[in-house]
């Protein structure tokens, strides 16, 4: 992969990725209290992370910027499987951008939806698909048995499949919202 990122591009990517990490943790926080709210967290993240993704894709339309963003988001998730999943997501995103053209809004939309689905799959579904018992025990210790039982009951396969579809839809809505914000504020201000 030819990388022509300059220092100013890396600085911009770092700054916007920091904002992405903050949004990833802070915005869904009120929903985690309730066990049903853990299903809402990936939807909220999909909706609100879009603006950061679009900004990086528009301000730094070069090979590697979105991959770095995905790696940083993966590291912020603090689990090895999550880092690996978002690294793969970054490679897929870079492939799409290379084929469709860096800076293209359509490419950013498609790649963001894929990123959001990967994010949901790795963050919310992998623990319950592959480490079901260990995750249940961990939830019992952290949150109590009642909370853990409720979380377990809402993680059935039909619900998980529905969640992935819902994340895709929310990600798409997030891209529409982001494009509106970019046009309304940032293009007018000359930032983009």
């Amino acid at each position: 992969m030819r990388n022509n990122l300059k220092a100013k591009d890396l600085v911009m990517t770092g700054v916007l990725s920091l904002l992405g990490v903050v949004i990833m943790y802070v915005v869904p926080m009120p929903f985690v209290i309730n066990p049903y709210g853990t299903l809402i967290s990936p939807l909220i993240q999909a909706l609100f992370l879009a603006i950061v993704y679009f900004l990086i894709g528009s301000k730094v339309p070069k090979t590697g910027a979105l991959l770095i963003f995905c790696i940083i988001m993966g590291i912020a998730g603090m689990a090895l499987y999550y880092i690996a999943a978002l690294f793969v997501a970054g490679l897929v995103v870079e492939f799409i951008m290379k084929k469709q053209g860096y800076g293209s809004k359509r490419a950013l939309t498609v790649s963001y939806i894929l990123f959001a689905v990967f994010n949901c799959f790795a963050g919310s579904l992998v623990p319950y698909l592959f480490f079901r018992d260990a995750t249940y025990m961990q939830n019992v210790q952290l949150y109590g048995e009642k909370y853990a039982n409720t979380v377990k009951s809402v993680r059935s396969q039909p619900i998980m499949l529905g969640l992935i579809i819902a994340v895709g839809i929310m990600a798409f809505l997030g891209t529409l919202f982001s494009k509106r914000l970019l046009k309304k504020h940032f293009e007018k201000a000359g930032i983009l």
Partner: protein
Amino acid sequence: MVSKKKNGFQFDPRVNLLTVVLTASLMFILQGEYASVYLFVVVISMAALNCKIKIGIKYTVIFIFVYGLSLITRGALQVLIKAFVLRGVSLGAAVTVMIHSADTSKIIVSLRQMKLPEQLLIPFSVMLRFFSTLIQDIKLIRFGMKTRGISLIGKSPVMIYELYLVPVIMRMVKTAGNLSAAAETRGISWKGEKTSYEQVRFRVVDAAAAVILTGIYTFLFITQL
């Protein structure tokens, strides 16, 4: 030449970074009832060894207060405090100690010595440096909205998001532009070997601390105390 230490003994930035990484990794993995206490004790010990006594005292007070809250609250609030806030205090303490124990330049030098690629090193360093600036900017924006009489009551979540996020992003983009210009004038793009006025060496005491820390965290993980 090793620079004179003004703040007493301090570990190599990599040891403090290791503390942050291990604390973050184990934060939600340790399952024992007193896991948050053990994590906190380790982090505060590191703060003391780094001669960051004020930071240690401040976070100890916060931890005791939050721990007390976790005992007296019930239901969803207790879950939130025990599962997130209490453990988050340990991580917050570890990050604060890391940031205050060394200049950003020393952290960058130590990461460069670890052969981290520039494509990750620069964004990571920027994130470390910018975190406090971001918090400050959010506070200023809230203050600005208050001054202008902009109330968030009755507004939709989307509008609230727009009201906060757009100014924050504008500020961050402008500051990023200034920062990158400053970095360019300091030769960040130069391809040759970079040297530093501040010398960072991984001493025997740093290696011993890293081994002991890893041992303690491994012990906590295996025993799930």
